[in-house]
């Protein structure tokens, strides 16, 4: 795991990251791909929620997914660790195809971390126990070793002093940072975020975004559903815009925000900026 970085949003505004991200999209070679979705379709009963989704994500790439409510953003990323099943098309994650008869979906899930809007921490376990749960019980790592890693992770998300509290005793922002640490404890190759800051009070949003920015810097492959446009501009290599189950447009953040192509994108951006 990469070294802990303490940099904040301001320090990210300098060229290192932007150069890095611009470079990545350009020099992608196909064998660098870690996620590939080909003509993916999904229905909930008669409701067609994903329509011919094609998406490729390279290693270390940071993707921000946005779009109006109900457009299928959550469904899309939940298909990537198969919390949801797609009915048509192909999804490859880290070279393994996700389908109904896969041998062991848990192997994929260990490598794909997920952070939820509602945190979903385990309320009966302390912060530290939440973090070591999966390493100890899934990966069978010795408890003491998992414990050390967990302490490091808590330092990384800047709440080492909360280790022995229960989730209900933490603020929303702290809980979400624990949730991120819990996912990272499995040393995932990909991190999925489903509106990680939407349930938070405004003053707590930045503490979670800081952690996510640090994570992005460390080279993690990230797919974030978020409406935090500042974050998208700073961190994303690409912004994907969805509406009514389709990917309408994808572009690097600069182009996406300043020069949207589709009228639907324009409308959406006008709406969230008006807020």
């Amino acid at each position, binding site marked *: 795991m990469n070294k802990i970085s303490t940099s904040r949003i301001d320090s990210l505004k300098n060229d290192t990251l932007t150069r890095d991200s611009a470079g990545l999209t350009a020099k992608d070679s196909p064998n660098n791909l870690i996620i590939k979705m080909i003509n993916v379709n999904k229905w909930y009963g008669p409701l067609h929620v994903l329509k011919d989704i094609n998406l490729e994500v390279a290693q270390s790439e940071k993707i921000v997914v946005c779009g109006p409510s109900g457009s299928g953003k959550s469904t899309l990323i939940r298909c990537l*660790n198969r*919390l949801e099943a797609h009915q048509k098309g192909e999804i490859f994650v880290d070279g393994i195809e996700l389908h109904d008869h896969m041998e062991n979906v*848990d*192997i994929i*899930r*260990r490598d*794909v*971390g*997920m952070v*939820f809007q*509602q945190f*979903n*921490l*385990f*309320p*009966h376990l*302390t912060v530290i126990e939440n973090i070591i*749960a*999966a390493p100890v*019980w*899934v*990966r069978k790592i010795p408890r003491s070793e998992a414990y050390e890693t967990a302490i490091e992770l808590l330092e990384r998300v800047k709440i080492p002093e909360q280790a*022995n*509290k*229960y989730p*209900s*005793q933490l603020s929303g922002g702290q809980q979400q940072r624990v*949730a991120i640490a*819990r*996912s990272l404890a*499995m040393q995932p190759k990909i991190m999925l975020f489903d509106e990680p800051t939407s349930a938070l009070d405004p003053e707590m949003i930045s503490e979670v975004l800081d952690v996510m920015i640090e994570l992005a810097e460390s080279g993690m492959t990230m797919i974030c559903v978020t409406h935090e446009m500042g974050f998208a501009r700073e961190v994303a290599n690409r912004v994907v815009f969805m509406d009514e189950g389709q990917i309408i447009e994808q572009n690097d953040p600069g182009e996406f925000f300043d020069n949207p192509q589709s009228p639907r994108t324009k409308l959406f951006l006008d709406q969230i900026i008006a807020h």
Partner: protein
Amino acid sequence: MYKDTVIDKKLVHQPKFIGVFFGVWFVTFFVFDLGGSIFGQFLAPVIGDPATSGLYGRFVVAFVLGFFLTLNIFAIGFLPTQRQSLVVWIELAICFVGGFHIFNLSLEFIQSKIWFLISRGLFTTIYVSVISIIFAFIVAMIGAIAKLSGNGFAMGIANFYTSLLRALPLLLLLFLVYLGLPQTGYVIDAVPAGILALTLNYGAYMTEVFRGGIESIPPGQWEAARSLGFTFGPTMRRVILPQAIPIIIPPTGNMFISMLKDSSLVSVIGVWELMFMARTLGQKTFQHMEMLITVAMVYWVLTIVLEIFQRRLEKHYSTVKETKE
């Protein structure tokens, strides 16, 4: 539960209520002439012989009773809520137990038998109930997990089990086990037969309770565990059950209290538990009431002890999430 933060004006201290309360009881006591009861004898110095005191005697008895009842609730009104509830409980218990005097129970007879009744009967009742509830807990846990497992075979077996066993009256099941099993070659004693029947029956009910408890855990917990790579079994064991068990325990306590009494059914196949003692000990001398009432009191005390225990348990599980530091 939410506790009101504003204290109402106390009803029992309002003159209007006191007046009405007294009036109602006065009229009631007056109509149901209590002169002939123990109260009439108490007031004999004032009214003379209750039998001949006529309307005057009736009036005095009703007035005095009504007055003390009203004074009683007026006084209780000054106590804090917890105390109030306790005092009222104790008063009702005294009235209830006091009411037994109409049966003219022979205390000597009770004293002569109670030790035997408790040492044999109570022990068997508790022993049968405890073993049955433990087995039922295990059966129910397996049943509930089977129902939620998504495995067709497991679900089928569990559904068949609860559907059949919840349909059979416990007494019928008891006879089926006790009389039926020996015909298939397994001779079974009365006590194991009773335990088996109670386990099967309560296991079926508790399966549904447990399923409800497990299902009440938010789906987000499943999603979080599964997305960390937990499979079904470990998710259940490490994440879902530790949260579901505190929800399941209180209704299990309730089931246990109910089982304690249903275990009396095994007396029909000759198990020497409390109910069996109650029916047989008084038979020789026709002192049925003595033993029945004694056993009733034993069941009551037992249930009170269990209620206290259950409350402790509930409290323990609701505060267990506080800091561990």
